[in-house]
């Protein structure tokens, strides 16, 4: 099945493991991308993903608009991540998310990337602010989330996502790693008159 899942298919998935696995295959990367940015290790992100799949399984016959399944999964994943953050904070008596997350956790591991240019881009991504990094991660999700869905997840105005994306990419382009690696090929030069 290549097109959007319909209500009939979701109902089938509630009683057929193969159909459910097909949904998982379609959206696995999107759920993974949606748990990015909370400072969790891969094990925790995997736990979150498992709960999201369980919740989906429990909700298959009650999802009103199957065309919005991607957004439902992304939002549910983010909510579960926030719940984990709050639970950890409650037990460790911290005041901010940064106190809970492990700063040594590298959600984006540049070292495992083989291509030199892509690896440098990953290094540069790890150097920009966390909000930009999370936005670009969500924008990179497969299948793609709409700007509206991302805005809802990030509690941002829908119209701000496009400009925010451009701004984050400009920040990235200004990083020395990017200049050194691809500045020439991307023609990262000042416009005339600036």
């Amino acid at each position, binding site marked *: 099945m290549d097109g959007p899942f319909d209500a009939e298919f979701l109902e089938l998935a509630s009683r057929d*493991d193969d159909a*459910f*696995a097909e949904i*998982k295959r379609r959206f*696995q*990367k999107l759920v*993974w991308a949606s748990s*990015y940015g909370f400072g969790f290790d891969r094990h925790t992100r*995997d736990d979150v993903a*498992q*709960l999201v*799949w*369980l919740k989906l399984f*429990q909700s298959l016959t009650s999802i009103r608009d199957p065309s919005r399944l991607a957004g439902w999964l992304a939002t549910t994943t*983010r909510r*579960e991540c926030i*719940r*984990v953050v*709050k*639970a950890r*904070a*409650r*037990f460790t008596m911290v005041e*901010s*998310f940064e106190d*809970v*997350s492990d700063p040594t956790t590298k*959600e*984006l591991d540049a070292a*495992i990337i*083989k291509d030199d*240019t*892509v*690896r440098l*881009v*990953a290094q540069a*991504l790890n150097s920009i602010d966390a*909000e930009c990094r999370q936005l*670009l*991660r969500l924008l*990179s999700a497969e299948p793609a989330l709409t700007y509206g869905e991302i805005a809802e997840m990030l*509690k*941002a105005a829908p119209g*701000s996502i496009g400009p*925010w*994306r*451009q*701004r984050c*990419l*400009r*920040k*990235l*382009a*200004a990083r020395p790693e*990017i200049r050194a690696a*691809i500045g020439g090929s*991307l023609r*990262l030069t*000042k416009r005339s008159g*600036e």
Partner: protein
Amino acid sequence: MNSDDSFPDLDFDDAPDGEAHDDEELDALFALVQRAFAEGDPSPSADDRGISYVRWLAPDADLGVMFEVELAGVRDDSDDSDDVEFVGVHVRVAASLSPYRIVGEVSPWTGGTVQLEHEHGTLDVDVDDDGSLYIASPPAGPLRLRVQSAAGELVTEWFAVSPGRSS
């Protein structure tokens, strides 16, 4: 990063270094960003985890995966209980755990049996018509709940109620 689920207001007029790039350049950079995330933050390979994984872990019942939660109206803030939720495919158990008591709720509850399994045996747990349960002075050591109802069977992860338990 913030502690809540919203982002701060952003000032898009604050260009990083006064440099501007056209959309084509930024789109080309974004293509590399997509590759960086795909290769540097790969999702776990597609496998049979998920519902099948849960069933495999507990072949005679779905495994309730434990998560820390807030149980409004259940938790007594003056005690040292931990609020958790065990989520299975068909049944959930929300519970407040402390060395002195376990207060919980099974949902959906359509009648059946709940047992508390511990190192030395099994205790039958009374459940009222609403699915609420109460266990006074639970045994020390590893514990888990087994629910058998018309909605499905669920066995929770092992947990402990002694102070300082890991979550």
